């Protein structure tokens, strides 16, 4: 070979080498990546220059992987999953409805029949799976807030009220608008948000376990053979649905892992600038999912303790602290914990729930109005029984929601002391307060019939009538009235119902004082009046009988 030929070959080789390296780098850049590890990429360019194809194959794999992952829409898949699951659950419910065998008492819950138990299980799992939503309730809650705003707008032109009355009414409406209306929206949204959470492997595993439990329970229910066979198929279909979506999610996770490995091998990362547009879209989506109402308070704001309830404090140093109602405090920090907003206050240790504070100092009268409204408009407690159609309320949903609240809010008070001798236990006053009153004796009830439905009714009606709306919302009150009315129609409880007149008077006052739908209020009042009439009639009858007997 002549020197010219050698030089030409070297030049060609050099050009080829340069081209390979350039092509490799260009591929990295045009595919949406930037170099993260310059040493690594330099090493790879050496390999590429030598004609090794592994780095190029790897980047091709990465590009394909990225395309696959970009097309994986977890939001859509989550929606599809819930849609499929809803259909499967409907099939199960449909199959159960065809069972003609009489429902027996549930072996798991002796208080209800198997049918009721089944309905409860289905209702609970629907809520957990995010299938039962409260979108309508969110809409109605928003509409209710708008209605309050409309009332505020109309206040100026209202000629039936004087200036002072208008002012009081305005404060009342404003408190509803900024307090209870918002709480209602938040509560309804919290339920609905379950349906917009993305599915994950753990989520599916957890849900599948619940379905397995339901399956086991259904299989021991008193079902016809044919219903049982169909049920087995239904549950098998559910298992297949879970497998299908678990597989999809697993593939995505596996792709994620592969992608990380490839990025590390290639010494590159995603070009943020190129994906900025996408991230902005994502941010926008996330923002859309944020609570409708943003927290009104910020760091350095001045707030006033409103005394609406005992302040929820976190941290040992805060437990004995008493904040003064109406006193001004400065917000040093805002902390979000378990979805609740807490303040750190200047000069005071501990965290304080933000809802216990107002942005402006309230007068005594306003505080009173506020408390009443909070009671009146507290988050809607929902009760659904087959007999409370007019309420259209979902107890199971509420129970589920409240279970979470209890899990989150009830301070653990059970103390593991199985290995302790009770004599050795020295309880200080604080622990004692947490535990409650010590039981010093327990004996069998002497008076027969005390544990009957009548006394439970007296107890529950008494609590419902005497409690705040926060504890016994109107839905619960109507449930108690219904229970009484049902029971009263069938059982002579006149001799044991000395407490009912005063209880019903309290209930009447409660209904009258609550800002609820007039139709609903009338319905409840009629129910109470009906019961009253019957009581009076029976009382007279009893009186006549007594007279006849010379009592």
């Amino acid at each position, binding site marked *: 070979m002549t020197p010219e030929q050698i030089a030409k070959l070297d030049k060609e080789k050099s050009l080829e080498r340069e081209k390979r390296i350039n092509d490799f780098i260009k591929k990295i850049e045009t595919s949406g990546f930037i170099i993260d590890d310059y040493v690594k990429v330099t090493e790879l360019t050496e390999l590429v220059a030598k004609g090794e194809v592994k780095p190029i194959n790897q980047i091709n794999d990465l590009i394909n992987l990225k395309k696959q992952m970009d097309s994986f829409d977890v939001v859509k898949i989550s929606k599809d999953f819930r849609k499929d699951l809803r259909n499967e659950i409907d099939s199960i419910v449909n199959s159960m409805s065809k069972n003609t065998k009489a429902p027996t008492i549930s072996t798991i819950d002796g208080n209800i029949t198997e049918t009721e138990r089944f309905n409860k299980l289905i209702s609970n799992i629907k809520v957990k799976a995010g299938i039962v939503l409260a979108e309508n309730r969110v809409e109605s809650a928003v509409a209710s807030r708008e209605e309050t705003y409309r009332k505020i707008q109309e206040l100026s032109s209202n000629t039936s009220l004087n200036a002072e009355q208008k002012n009081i009414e305005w404060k009342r409406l404003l408190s509803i608008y900024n307090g209870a209306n918002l709480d209602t929206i938040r509560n309804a949204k919290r339920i609905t948000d379950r349906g917009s959470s993305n599915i994950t492997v753990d989520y599916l595993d957890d849900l599948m376990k619940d379905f397995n439990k339901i399956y086991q329970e259904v299989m021991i229910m008193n079902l016809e053979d044919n219903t049982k066979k169909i049920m087995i198929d239904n549950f098998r279909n559910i298992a297949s649905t879970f497998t299908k979506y678990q597989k999809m999610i697993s593939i995505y996770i596996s792709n994620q892992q592969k992608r990380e490995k490839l990025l590390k091998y290639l010494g590159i990362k995603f070009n943020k600038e190129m994906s900025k547009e996408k991230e902005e879209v994502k941010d926008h989506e996330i923002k859309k999912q944020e609570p409708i109402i943003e927290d009104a308070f910020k760091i350095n704001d001045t707030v006033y303790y409103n005394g609406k309830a005992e302040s929820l404090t976190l941290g040992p140093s805060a437990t004995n602290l008493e904040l003064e109602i109406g006193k001004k405090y400065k917000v040093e920090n805002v902390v979000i914990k378990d979805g609740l907003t807490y303040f750190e206050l200047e000069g005071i240790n501990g965290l304080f729930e933000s809802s216990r504070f107002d942005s402006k100092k309230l007068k005594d009268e306003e505080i009173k109005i506020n408390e009443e409204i909070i009671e009146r408009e507290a988050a809607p407690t929902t009760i659904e029984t087959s007999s409370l159609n007019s309420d259209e309320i979902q107890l199971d949903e509420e129970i589920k929601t409240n*279970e979470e609240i209890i899990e989150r809010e009830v301070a653990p008070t059970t*103390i593991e*002391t199985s290995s302790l001798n009770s004599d050795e236990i020295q309880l200080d006053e604080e622990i004692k307060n947490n535990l*409650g009153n010590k039981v010093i*004796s327990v004996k069998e009830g002497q008076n027969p019939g005390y544990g009957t439905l009548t006394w*439970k009714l*007296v107890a*529950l009606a008494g*609590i419902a009538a005497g409690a705040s709306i926060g504890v016994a919302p109107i839905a619960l009150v109507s449930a108690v009235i219904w*229970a009484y009315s049902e029971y009263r129609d069938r059982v002579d409880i006149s001799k044991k119902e000395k407490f009912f007149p005063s209880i019903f008077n309290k209930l009447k006052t409660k209904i009258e004082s609550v800002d609820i739908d007039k139709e609903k209020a009338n319905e409840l009042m009629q129910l109470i009046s009906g019961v009253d009439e019957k009581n009076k009639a029976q009382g007279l009858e009893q009186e006549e009988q007594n007279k006849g007997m010379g009592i």
Partner: protein
Amino acid sequence: MKLDTVVELESNKKYYILDETIQNDKKYFLATKLDENEEMTAESTIFEENKVGEDFFLKEVTDDKTARYILSVFTTTLINEIEDEKKED
């Protein structure tokens, strides 16, 4: 602690245990206060049971959300019981 019993507390108050429920591993009771003759009164409450060693403690549920929830549970149980009795009639 069980149903249909009279419990006397350290405060010397006596209650009749009417109903119970276990929620999140905690036992709650529906109880009615008894007068000095151990007759039922109109005063009822919901207690949370706590156990320390061999000792039992009853703490009145004062948290609104918890009280509302437990009250819902007891009311639903009562409604179911009434419904069941109705079916038996």
